[in-house]
């Protein structure tokens, strides 16, 4: 994005791509539905995953399986949110880390040669941190049962979009 600093490019990149934004939102909502310890671990694992993934992605173009995984994660995470599934902490952290890596690879591989990776990647990590933190905060802060159902519905919508686009491929 010309005219925007590399750091801001890193922040905006995942936020303007639906196929990255929706899985991140789903992850944030899922984290909010877990117990506090799992939520914090998921939040802590995500930005490092993004950083590692983006670093990997900046060296080589992303293999197509990464795109599949991101779409699939929309479906899987969306379903988990809709079902309000409680996960064992290990599984939760693993999901968070793996998703961080795949989204990081997807974003990092789009780094042009003009963009400085040292500024882009921290921006990316920060954006990821914010989205997941927002998701956790929303689910925790908005207590009324109908709003909690609303978050489950949101998860259902995200899963629906993921399933539809997967069917297309």
């Amino acid at each position: 994005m010309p005219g925007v600093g590399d750091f801001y490019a890193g922040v905006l990149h995942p936020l303007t791509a639906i196929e990255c934004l929706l899985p991140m939102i789903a992850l944030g909502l899922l984290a909010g539905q877990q117990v506090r310890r799992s939520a914090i671990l998921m939040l802590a694992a995500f930005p490092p995953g993004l950083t590692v993934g983006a670093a990997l992605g900046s060296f080589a173009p992303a293999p197509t399986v990464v795109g599949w995984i991101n779409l699939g994660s929309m479906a899987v995470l969306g379903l988990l949110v809709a079902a309000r599934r409680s996960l064992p902490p290990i599984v939760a952290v693993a999901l968070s880390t793996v998703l961080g890596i795949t989204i990081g690879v997807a974003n990092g591989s789009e780094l042009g040669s003009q963009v400085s990776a040292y500024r882009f990647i921290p921006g990316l990590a920060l954006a990821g941190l914010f989205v997941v933190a927002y998701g956790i905060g929303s689910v925790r802060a908005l207590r009324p049962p109908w709003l909690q159902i609303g978050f489950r519905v949101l998860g259902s919508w995200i899963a629906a979009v993921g399933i539809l686009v997967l069917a297309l491929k």
Partner: protein
Amino acid sequence: MTLSALKRRARPFAARCAWVVSALALVASPAFAHPNSGLGVGFVSGFTHPLTGIDHILAMVAVGIWGTQLRKPAIWLLPVTFPLVMSFGGALGVRGVPLPGGEIGVAASAAILGLMIVLSARPPIAVAAVIVGSFAIFHGYAHGVELPKAAYPLAYGVGFVLATGLLHVTGIALGLIERWPIGVKALRGMGAGISAVGVYLLLGLIR
């Protein structure tokens, strides 16, 4: 209620509203910033697709209204599971799997769901789920058929899932008026109207 009591109750509500509004504001802008690019066009075409058919609109609102009549657990189970079943129908449409009587199914859904509202029918949740689920497949199919042709399929998918979901929410919000006796009558009238339009379209299709 005294003013101070009202203020006490309003404060946490206002804080929650602020949270929701800010979240929406943060998320909403990127998609609409460039309406002429592929992303915006895809989203808009997806969002408007459910709104192009009156039978789509009426049936989705009817699902919301009937959900409130069925009470728990349908009132939350339906909005949570409907998009998923719809996406399955949509996947069928995307793959081009032939589904006999696609448009008839959509018109029939309006007719039958309207009838359910008029009768305030409360079948067992499993029966209601099967009825609504089968209609969800038809509706999803109708949207899914258009998905591959969309400028930006992902945005199209987001658009129509969002539009359908918002129509549900509208239906649920309308259904809440049943706490007043006149609301109950109004809902019956709405159900009759929905059913009438559905039957009319159905007859037009069968001819």
